[in-house]
């Protein structure tokens, strides 16, 4: 008898399925039922660029402590439903872990491992005996294994039934058939398996609170609604497509005129990303708030237009749901590898504003904020989310909207202003922040019209290739960038309980893993202060943090340490002080990876400090 991993409310279950078999819904049901018991979960889809047939996984981390990052290491229980990936799935189970499989067909013992616990349930036999329709067999097999797992792990089946009840409200036939399938799995396990032998258990807790469970793409789309976006242009690309689709869904509920039924928004699925960003720029030039959502390859295509918007000073919001690059790269895997390509997109000297949300909650906030910032700064603003945040359900604090908050359209001169004799120079900095006033087309019959262009121009939008005029304009744009650093989201700092010379800088989807990693380091006696960067241009607080520490670890999910490169060049820093900790295999970064990486470096540093002491 192999040893058995024992854990309550702290384990990882991974489902190995075939894409398109309807397993995603059942797996999500499993995750939600645990949430309903007050125990936080953090599920992640690991899926191929495929619609049907290829392997797909769903990893559920059950975490009473609320560590929402990917744990890493082996899994505690594998629900192996895909013969294609059987060998690698079995291998991934930690020693003492559990393998749950469909035991309808006998399998040779060589297919298993001696150091793990095997639980066979004849799922196919049960479904075939109960259902005749092929599609029903496939779908209900998934519900049956959820039923079986609920007995093994002590998940309250009433919570699952309540979830069914909410989903199939008014469709009692569906409700009944799903409950029946659930009970088929439960009854079989109760009769044939000693559930007590499985020592992974879910115990009711109260650690979920009022948090919501939502995907980042959905949240960002809602942020666009609240931020007042009226024009959305997009081109389908994984992993961002569900963002524009969610915007459509939200608008259908929230943005139709009650009386006429007409739409207070316009969504265009463009012919490519060039057209998407062109439509956004045209709409924003004309006074609408507009955004597009895309991923890395889309940014590559948009680059010329981004330069135009920056130089002609037209607002634009681009939500970049990053994936593995370069080129087509890993379309269904996550990375933070578009920082440089977004921050400095375009030919010539350009810099752009980037926001780094940590979770769906900040996807909502930052997308709404980006629309304000783009209008305020009259420039493109990127919301740099990624697949890990965008396409996975994540627990986060409820969305919040201040009753008093108003749309900030920035410096817009009206017909009344022009009639009152205010001086209008489209590129004239009247108050020293580098941001000029603009007029919307159609404002005034004789005043305020100007020609928008990507060529160099003077303060009054007149074409000029004169060196002094060009330099004046470029310096004003730099001044505007300094203003951006002050009004963009500021960094968030966490202090170790003990004074330390070491700091760590991170951003975006690394956040949940970092929270756990800092706990691990602290427990091991390694004290580190932490700073989460939330925007580029970097705030003064980022530079201060770097100068306050002897060594800074910079944790990123890309190969080339892109944030580190930007910090070094923007603040003119000595790179030897900035130690990169890089994770870029396409899977979300884990706490174990971060803490091990930092602990290793700290160990080496301690040797150096001994030498120092000896000298």
């Amino acid at each position, binding site marked *: 008898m192999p040893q058995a991993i024992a854990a309550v409310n702290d384990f990882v279950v991974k489902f190995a399925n075939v894409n398109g078999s309807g397993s995603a819904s059942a797996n999500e049901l499993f995750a939600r039922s645990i949430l309903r018991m007050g125990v936080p979960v953090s599920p992640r889809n690991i899926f191929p660029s495929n619609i049907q047939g290829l392997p797909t996984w769903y990893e559920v981390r059950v975490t009473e402590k609320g560590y929402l990052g990917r744990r890493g290491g082996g899994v505690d229980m594998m629900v192996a439903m895909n013969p294609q990936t059987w060998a690698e799935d079995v291998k991934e189970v930690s020693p003492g872990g559990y393998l749950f499989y469909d035991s309808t067909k006998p399998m040779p013992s060589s297919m298993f491992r001696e150091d793990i616990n095997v639980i066979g349930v004849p799922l196919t036999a049960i479904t075939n005996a109960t259902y005749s329709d092929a599609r029903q067999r496939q779908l209900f097999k998934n519900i049956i294994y959820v039923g079986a797992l609920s007995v093994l792990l002590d998940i309250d089946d009433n919570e699952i039934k309540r979830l069914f009840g909410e989903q199939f*409200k008014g469709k009692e036939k569906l409700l009944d058939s799903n409950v029946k399938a659930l009970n088929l799995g439960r009854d079989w396990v109760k009769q044939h398996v000693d559930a007590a032998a499985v020592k992974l258990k879910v115990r009711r807790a109260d650690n979920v609170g009022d948090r919501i469970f939502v995907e980042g793409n959905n949240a960002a789309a809602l942020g666009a609604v609240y931020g007042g976006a009226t024009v959305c242009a997009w081109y389908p690309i994984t992993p961002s497509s569900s963002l524009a689709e969610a915007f459509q869904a939200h608008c259908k509920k929230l943005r139709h005129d009650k009386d006429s039924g007409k739409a207070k928004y316009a969504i265009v699925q463009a012919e490519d990303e060039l057209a998407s960003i062109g439509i956004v720029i045209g709409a924003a030039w*004309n006074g609408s708030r507009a955004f597009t959502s895309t991923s890395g390859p889309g940014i590559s295509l948009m680059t010329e237009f981004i330069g135009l918007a920056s130089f002609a000073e037209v607002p634009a919001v681009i939500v970049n749901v990053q994936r593995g690059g370069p080129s087509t790269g890993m379309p269904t895997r996550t990375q933070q590898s578009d920082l440089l390509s977004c921050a400095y997109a375009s030919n010539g000297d350009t810099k752009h504003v980037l926001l780094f949300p940590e979770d769906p909650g900040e996807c909502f906030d930052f997308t709404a904020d980006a629309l304000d910032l783009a209008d305020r700064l009259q420039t493109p603003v990127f919301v740099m989310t990624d697949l890990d945040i965008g396409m996975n359900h994540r627990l986060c604090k409820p969305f919040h909207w201040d009753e008093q*908050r108003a749309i900030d359209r920035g410096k817009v001169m009206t017909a009344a202003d022009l009639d009152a004799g205010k001086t209008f120079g489209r590129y004239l900095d009247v108050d020293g922040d580098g941001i000029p006033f603009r007029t919307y087309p159609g404002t005034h019959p004789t005043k305020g019209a100007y020609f928008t262009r990507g060529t160099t121009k003077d303060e009054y939008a007149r074409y000029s290739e004169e060196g002094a005029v060009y330099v004046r304009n470029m310096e004003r744009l730099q001044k505007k960038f300094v203003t951006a650093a002050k009004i963009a989201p*500021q960094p968030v700092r966490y202090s170790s309980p003990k004074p330390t010379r070491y700091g760590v800088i991170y951003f975006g989807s690394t956040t949940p893993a970092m929270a756990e990693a800092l706990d691990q380091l602290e427990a091991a006696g390694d004290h580190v202060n*932490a700073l989460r960067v939330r925007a580029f241009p970097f705030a003064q607080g980022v530079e201060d943090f770097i100068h306050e520490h002897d060594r800074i670890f910079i944790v990123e999910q890309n190969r080339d340490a892109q944030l580190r490169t930007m910090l070094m060049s923007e603040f003119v820093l000595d790179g030897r002080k900035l130690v990169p900790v890089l994770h870029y295999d396409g899977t979300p970064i884990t706490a174990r990876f971060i803490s091990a990486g930092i602990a290793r470096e700290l160990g080496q540093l301690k040797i150096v400090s001994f030498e120092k002491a000896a000298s």
Partner: protein
Amino acid sequence: MTYIAKPRLHHPSLVKNKAGYTRRDYEGAVSTLCAGCGHDSISAAIIQASYELDVLPHQIAKLSGIGCSSKAPTYFLGASHGFNTVHGRMPSVMTGANLANKNLVYMGVSGDGDSASIGLGQFAHIMRRGVNMTYIVMNNGVYGLTKGQFSATADKGSISKKGVANSDEPIDLVSLAILMGATFVGRSFSGDKHQLVPLIKAAMAHKGAAFLDVISPCVAFNNHPGSTKSYDYVREHNEALNRIDFIESREEITTSYDPGTLTTVRQHDGSILRLRKLGEEYDASDKVAAMKRVQEGMAAGEVVTGLLYVDPSPKDLHHHLNTVDVALNMLGDADLCPGPSALDRINAGLRLSDTSSPCWAASLAASSGPPSCPWPWASCSPNSAAPSRARSPWAARPWAASAVPRWALPSAYGWSCGRAARAPAWCSPGSP
């Protein structure tokens, strides 16, 4: 003389149109194009058409791409906002501008390189979306600004100034526009003002995608013998199918013609197009016949001009998207932001089950019947009684310190928003 600014003073006796503006109010800066350039004649025709249509100068938005033709908007409609975009991508910018404000008149100006070479994709897609606009291509068959390379509309066999014959098939933008769903398609010649001005007026009144291909000889690089886009060639081969009289809905019709020589087309806005027959029978409302006649002309080496195709009741992009009557850029906070109470309902729904697409609950349904998506907050509607939101938005940033989620903190850590020694400057947003 292009460095001399135009005097802004008008002669007091200049005739004003019904909108109260003189023809000069529709002019722009002095042209920097070559003397004799066809594009300047088209600019003059646009000025004339706008003046005669009594449109308020600032109610027109003019957009262009890159090239000689795309420089032209500087030289007309100086009181209108203009946007010189990037090469070949003006159509998408114009689409966005049109979505933002459906109440302006949109004038897109492009060239054959801009629309048929680098921008062919966007050209096709703006036509098929039915953006309400007038899209003019100043077509000279060459790249002027880069000194005379062939463009994609150059005819096969046409000889360049350097003596090279073009071996590629030409792209006919008129055929493409008709095929892609443009609802008003004409071709004209920069040297024929009497044909061109009424065509532009009719196109501007048309409430859908209107396209005009205007052959506009390049005096510097494509006006020599052997070119099929020279003044001489176009004059010799111009086959005008009809002449338009554009009559605005409010104008009284005074001229009379012999019956049988006229076709009357009433556009959706009430304006009337009288098509005077020139020789052959031609029905401009017959799309298939139009395609056939244009292709026949090409095969015969003719430059077929006139109003080639018109759908008098077009449906534009805003119709397809069912947008509200007021321009989207005029909608205020109460229209756009659903407010905190709607958000509370959304939050409640996201605690129970998720409402995002794809609908996971629907895919659970194993029985037949349409899948349904349960939105727990389906009953919520935009907050109609939105409170006044006059306060500075910077005071209400969600990224203020309180936004840091407690559960995201490492449990062993206290967190601070600032250092003890200094004021937490980066804790609260800086003032703009």
